[in-house]
């Protein structure tokens, strides 16, 4: 048993204690957007409404987190196609399977932790094994809450990747979410999509980017380092590449929003370029996510670049302010730059 003293009592305030800025714990309703960043509100909710206008099979379902997954936008547009299931995640996904079996296309939302942990067997058996057309859309992916392990979905991708039939998507920004929603409607079969909600950053529109299910895309090329990333880490990787450029380090960024099935052709080609350090960057534990998926692919195919992984450590993450935690666990832009520079020495 862990003693209650695992966390030490605060030391008495010394006169010369360093003045640290006090950051408040990032509430789960907070946006991931940085100060002054361009954003778009509720891209998932609005995109789903657009799809539902022409596809009457679409229904929305949630487990007491409609407001916190932007599904309330759908609820307002289609109140009679919205099912509030209460805070019952197992029921949510079992019922989604049933609706899908009757020909509907349920979009079922909750937080990533509660889908991947509380309801895993329900998703595995009633949705994936039966190959039901359910879209599982989950907020607070990876480390995007300061509330501690209960709300930090450090292992959601590993769990979902391991399920046969499951398509797994980790979008970067509002632009990508808008395009991913119609794409997963068009795809028949179970999908797990990580969700950013509220005021969602807009990044990829500047890169002339379009989302294609199953496709990785080179957002910028670079001959010294290749950052391979998904989700919000692509935003960070692009920032890091710019910062490193100022230090005369040439960095490419390959965005891999579809974690499963992997775009093996694009990955193998990009990683085969000689003399380039490959770094996979993920908002996920280093166990079982994009990093190990890419490493496994490269080993199997005999492609052996210098290879590093940046991801969350194999430990229960702390509670606190998100900027502090992203620095501590090495996934802030500054931490990315520092690690890459360290490896280039």
């Amino acid at each position, binding site marked *: 048993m862990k003693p209650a003293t695992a966390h030490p009592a605060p030391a008495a305030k010394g006169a010369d204690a360093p003045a640290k800025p006090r950051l408040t714990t990032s509430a789960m309703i907070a946006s991931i957007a940085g100060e002054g960043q361009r954003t778009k509100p509720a891209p998932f909710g609005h995109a789903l409404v657009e799809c539902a206008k022409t596809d009457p099979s679409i229904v929305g379902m949630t487990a007491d987190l409609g407001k916190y997954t932007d599904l309330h936008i759908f609820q307002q547009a289609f109140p009679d196609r919205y099912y*509030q299931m209460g805070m019952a995640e197992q029921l949510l996904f079992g019922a989604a399977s049933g609706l899908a079996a009757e020909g509907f296309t349920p979009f079922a939302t909750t937080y990533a932790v509660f889908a991947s942990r509380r309801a895993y067997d329900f998703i595995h058996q009633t949705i994936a094994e039966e190959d039901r057309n359910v879209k599982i859309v989950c907020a607070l992916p990876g480390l995007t809450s300061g509330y*501690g392990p209960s709300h930090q979905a450090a292992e959601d991708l590993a769990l979902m990747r391991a399920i046969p039939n499951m398509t797994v998507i980790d979008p970067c920004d509002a632009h990508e979410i808008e395009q991913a929603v119609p794409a997963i409607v068009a795809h028949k079969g179970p999908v797990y999509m990580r969700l950013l909600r509220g005021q969602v950053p807009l990044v990829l529109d500047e890169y002339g980017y379009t989302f294609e299910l199953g496709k990785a895309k080179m957002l910028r090329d670079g001959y010294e380092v290749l950052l391979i990333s998904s989700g919000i880490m692509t935003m960070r990787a692009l920032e890091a590449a710019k910062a490193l450029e100022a230090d005369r380090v040439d960095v490419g960024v390959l965005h891999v929003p579809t974690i499963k099935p992997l775009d093996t052709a694009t990955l193998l080609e990009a990683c085969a370029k000689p003399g380039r350090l490959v770094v996979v960057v993920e908002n996920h534990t280093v166990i079982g996510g994009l990093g190990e998926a890419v490493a496994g692919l490269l080993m199997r195919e005999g492609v052996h670049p210098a290879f590093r992984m940046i991801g969350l450590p194999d430990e229960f993450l702390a509670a606190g302010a998100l900027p502090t935690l992203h620095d501590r666990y090495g996934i802030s832009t500054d931490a990315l730059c520092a690690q890459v520079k360290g490896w280039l020495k």
Partner: protein
Amino acid sequence: MTISPSNVSLERRAWNIRRHAIRMGEVQGQGYIAQALDIADVLATAYFHAMRYEPQNPEWEGRDRFLLSNGHYAIALYAALIEAGIVPEDELETYGFDDSRLPMSGMASYTPGMEMSGGSLGLGLSIAVGKCLGLKRKGSDSRVYTLFSDGELDEGSVWEAIMSAAHYKLDNLIAIVDVNNQQADGPSTSMLGFEPLAEKLAAFNWFVQRVDGNDLGAVRAAFDAAKDANGGRPSMIIADTLMGKGIPFLEARDKNHFIRVDAHEWQLALAALDERKPA
């Protein structure tokens, strides 16, 4: 040794708990303050009337256990732990900040007196079943108090534990459910209907009492009856509460999972409380 009988009234204990909670809310500029205010009377009764514990030794084997299943109510439990002398009062200044022992969501490894890690709802009653079985197995007469929220009634796991506790005749379990009729998306009654709750739980072989959770006399009587008269059954206290209780402008505000409190209103809330200080 247990806490010595004190001449501080329960009314005053509840008032102090509300005050500590508001001060923590002000420190962080956020927090589940409306829930803390609604449950303060239950916590005051648990910690200053019903439970056996040693403030200086929160892991004392002979203590009654208290499980906070609804971990987002941590701000309320910290306030009670401060009032009980288990957590020093000046630590409330650290509430929710990096490396504090008082994180916004309750976790066992962080805080003395916090017996489980919450945050993910619907876990507490299962742990309680195991603790009650373990205490009986050890021949201990300690009880397990478990607080959970009306939203947690939606989780199937809660009903598994409810059946198990009756099956094993866990008369050392006293559960309290906070029926504040609020969940994340709206009023509990509009989420997943659980009424008639008392009848349901009685049919599940629990000793059930339903009280106004903000009437200290009624809450105290319910805790007493739960200890004495459950006849080989686990005990459930259904506490109907009012979010924001004790601060009139918060009682009147639109009900919400995160009740709005503007930056200047924390001081107004303290002032409103100070006007109502009991003896």
